[in-house]
């Protein structure tokens, strides 16, 4: 954004105003799709003109410009249809309560009628204030494809009233998806997911919102240690823990404690608790694996998720030994993603290096990501080198 001789626009501030401005337009009578388009145009205009002419009231400026764009659009449409232009009264600007508008947008953009990909794209644009191009780059698809996805999503929710709350769980699933996408392109989606979850937590009292925010912070804090400069993966046990962001860990733990104190456990709180136990251990040996297993028991109880069961088997292997871990693993479906990788790890831990080397190689062939494949291939190579 920063060009020479130009002061940069605070893009985060600009983007954080997006949902509230859309909300104002919708309350003035614009339909969501048109309001959203108008606000995008106002954002582009802001990035262009603010460096030379910063407004005193950024939000007021955006509302004014977006509303004007919206009216232009309406008039153009009316003229095109050769009908008498509908009369749009300029409303009296008054104090704006942005909280409910923004919250309503979270619910709208994560509406259950949307597919996950559509909900993610719409959330990033209408709530996150990202441009279609930025979202397209982050998800490695052509801009035209992302534009289509967003306009279809807008059509899908066009009949949904913006003034009622939805299910928080659907919003959290969308934010979790954004977070897990990590970062490619120039937008850090993990950081963006944290920002959006933080805004949500400020607007709604919900222990699972806090749980998800804590989970994101606790994972994000480990990011600097998670990969080597060449991009290769560093497993948790081998991470340089001095690289963990201790302030972020502390914040995550504090938020989690606040959530747990409400005594309404949910899956994100349970996942965050596990992440907190890892973050709390200065060395891998100090990890309280017994407690980790207990939290996985909770997570399995809450979600009945096969992935949680698989991770539980790893934790059991640490808490009670490789044989116990393998016994836990034996109860699971071998076709689960990463099942073979876990099996390889437990076999190595049990001293079966030949079996482990074979399993690591098999796991590499099934790996869903290149980083994991490379990591597992190196594990196999390491054991094969020892075995000779």
């Amino acid at each position, binding site marked *: 954004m920063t060009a020479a001789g130009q002061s940069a626009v605070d893009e985060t501030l600009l983007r954080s105003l997006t949902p509230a401005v859309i909300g104002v337009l919708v309350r003035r009578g614009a339909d969501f799709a048109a309001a959203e388009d108008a606000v995008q145009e106002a954002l582009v205009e802001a990035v262009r003109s603010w460096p030379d002419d910063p407004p005193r009231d950024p939000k007021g400026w955006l509302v004014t410009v977006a509303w004007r764009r919206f009216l232009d659009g309406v008039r153009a449409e009316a003229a095109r249809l050769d009908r008498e232009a509908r009369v749009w009264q300029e409303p009296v600007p008054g104090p704006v309560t942005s909280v409910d508008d923004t919250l309503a947008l979270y619910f709208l953009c994560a509406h259950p009628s949307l597919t996950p990909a559509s909900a993610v794209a719409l959330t990033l644009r209408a709530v996150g204030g990202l441009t279609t191009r930025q979202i397209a780059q982050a998800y490695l698809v052509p801009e035209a*494809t992302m534009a289509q996805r967003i306009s279809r999503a807008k059509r899908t929710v066009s009949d949904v009233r913006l003034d009622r709350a939805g299910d928080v769980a659907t919003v959290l699933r969308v934010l979790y998806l954004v977070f*897990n*996408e990590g970062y490619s392109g120039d937008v850090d989606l993990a950081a963006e997911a944290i920002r959006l979850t933080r805004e949500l937590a400020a607007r709604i009292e919900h222990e699972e919102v806090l749980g998800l925010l804590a989970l994101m912070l606790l994972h994000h804090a480990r990011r600097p240690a998670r990969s080597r400069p060449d991009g290769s993966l560093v497993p948790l046990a081998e991470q340089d823990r001095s690289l963990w962001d201790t302030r972020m860990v502390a914040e995550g733990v504090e938020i989690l404690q606040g959530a747990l104190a409400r005594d309404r456990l949910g899956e994100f709180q349970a996942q965050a608790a596990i992440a907190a136990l890892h973050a709390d251990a200065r060395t891998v040996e100090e990890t309280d694996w017994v407690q980790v297993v207990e939290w996985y028991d909770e997570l399995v109880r809450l979600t009945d998720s096969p992935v949680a069961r698989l991770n539980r088997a790893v934790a059991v292997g640490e808490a009670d030994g490789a044989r116990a871990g393998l016994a836990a693993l034996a109860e699971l479906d071998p076709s689960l993603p990463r099942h073979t990788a876990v099996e390889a790890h437990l076999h190595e831990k049990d001293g079966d290096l030949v079996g482990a080397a074979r399993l690591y190689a098999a796991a590499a062939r099934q790996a869903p990501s290149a980083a994991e494949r490379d990591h597992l291939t190196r594990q196999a190579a390491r054991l094969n080198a020892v075995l000779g």
Partner: protein
Amino acid sequence: MAKYLLLKHYRGAPTPVNDVPMDKWTPEEVSAHMTFMHDFATRLERTGEFVDGQALSPEGTFVRYDGEGRPPVTDGPFPETKDLIAGWYVIDVDSYERAVELAGELSAAPGAGGKPIHEWLELRPFLVEHSTVTE
């Protein structure tokens, strides 16, 4: 939100049901096929699932390094090569099931007699970026 490669083979895929080579179709059948392929791509664009689509020339060259200071060695094309890629679509879809559905639609492209070719298409998932919460 997963990307898949939809591979069309000149050679190497199992034999389709309607197995008549294209040069034995009527010109109208060829045109109908081309229209179908074009419409398929347009539909993918409209649904926001299109990433890429390309067709490849059947004849290519094999190339390999031949040591320091020497030009690369080229060879081929090898008529005996079993697998020959004709082209691909890259799609970005919500699920494996959706990818299978789209591959099925593409396989129904009309061929000889205006009937579906029932061509075997290969569906290959992309390796993903490593996700954050899997360690």
